[in-house]
């Protein structure tokens, strides 16, 4: 950083701080209240409150908001991610992942490879624990999937893409897992109305992404199962949605990086729009 840049940053920060102090002191700008907003109060009172009509059955408020109260937003977000991956694949649609064309397969040094063997096993375990406990502790499907996405990158970088290709990775398999994850999310989301129809109830009583039964829509997923005197909490659909999101996000990231990691000449020959 040159001295002029440093001076400019310091002067502008000081001016901004002075302006903020003056504005707050004169009462010119609204200051954020330290009290809870009504919306936050609603969530905190209802999310893990069994006597409430609108409860989410999960001790973790954020997962409950993401998949229950604002569930459709998250479904759209996953769909946007899916479309981005499809767009990337369109660019490289003619590039095949074959062991012969996947580079030299030299990888990095023995030290790095040995440590990566240990670390590579750990990353999926971390990701699975983040996603499977997502309804109980901080974490969730996207966080677990983003953590899982680092594992194929680490394998490609430390060993080589050729090893991945020899072990049978292909674009089709990863795309299948990816699509299966998204389909599972959709099926879980619309399962409640179909369960009602199958049970012979009135059609239309049951909502898309309905997590817990309501007084006016009595069918839903159970929030816990009792097994051998123990109560296992899985919060209705939240555990299954997290699991499906884990598969979708991790397979999508693995797919993108497997395609991008191919050697440049292969991509130039096989990728791009045909002339």
């Amino acid at each position, binding site marked *: *950083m040159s001295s002029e*840049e440093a001076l400019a*940053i310091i002067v502008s*920060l000081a001016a901004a701080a002075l302006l903020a102090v003056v504005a707050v002191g004169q009462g010119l700008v609204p200051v954020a209240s330290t009290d809870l907003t009504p919306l936050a109060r609603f969530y905190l009172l209802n999310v893990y409150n069994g006597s409430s009509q609108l409860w989410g059955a999960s001790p973790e408020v*954020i997962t409950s908001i993401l998949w229950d109260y604002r569930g459709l937003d998250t479904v759209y977000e996953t769909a946007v991610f899916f479309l981005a991956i499809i767009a990337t694949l369109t660019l490289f649609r003619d590039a095949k992942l074959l062991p012969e064309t996947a580079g030299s397969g030299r990888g990095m040094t023995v030290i790095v490879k040995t440590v990566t063997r240990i670390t590579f096993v750990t990353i999926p375990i971390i990701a699975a624990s*983040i996603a499977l406990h997502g309804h109980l502790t*901080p*974490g*969730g499907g*996207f*966080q677990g999937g*983003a*953590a899982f*996405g*680092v594992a194929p*990158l680490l394998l490609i*970088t430390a060993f080589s893409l050729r090893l991945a290709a020899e072990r049978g990775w292909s674009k089709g398999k990863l795309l299948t897992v990816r699509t299966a994850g998204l389909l599972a999310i959709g099926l879980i989301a619309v399962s409640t109305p179909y369960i009602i129809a199958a049970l012979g109830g009135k059609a239309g009583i049951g909502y898309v992404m309905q997590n817990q039964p309501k007084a006016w829509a009595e069918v839903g997923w159970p929030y816990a199962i009792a097994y051998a005197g123990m109560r296992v909490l899985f919060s209705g659909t939240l555990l299954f949605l997290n699991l499906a999101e884990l598969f979708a996000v991790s397979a999508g*990231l693995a797919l993108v*990086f497997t395609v*991008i*990691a191919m050697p*440049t000449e292969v991509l130039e020959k096989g990728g791009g729009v045909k002339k």
Partner: protein
Amino acid sequence: MFQGPIIFGLTVNEILLAVFLTLALIFTYKTLVERDLVKAVVYSGGEAVSYALAFVVMYAPDLVLAYVAVGLGIYSALFLFVITRTERYEKEVVEA
């Protein structure tokens, strides 16, 4: 629970939040003006760590998990893949 001292009417958490967000601001500025794209990737890694510190101070571990995994683990690799296929140094834009 440990309650820190109050300095100038601000708690320790608020002061730490201000410090870490200022760090993130500086790293963002350096990322924007840097002409060497590899250095810009490293600066954005520093920015991710600064934001993670701020999220820890705000008691948001979910965001730490997602932000650092994306900012250090995935984003940097994506940009390095792209930089190996283009040029490392950003050229000066000449007005025609």
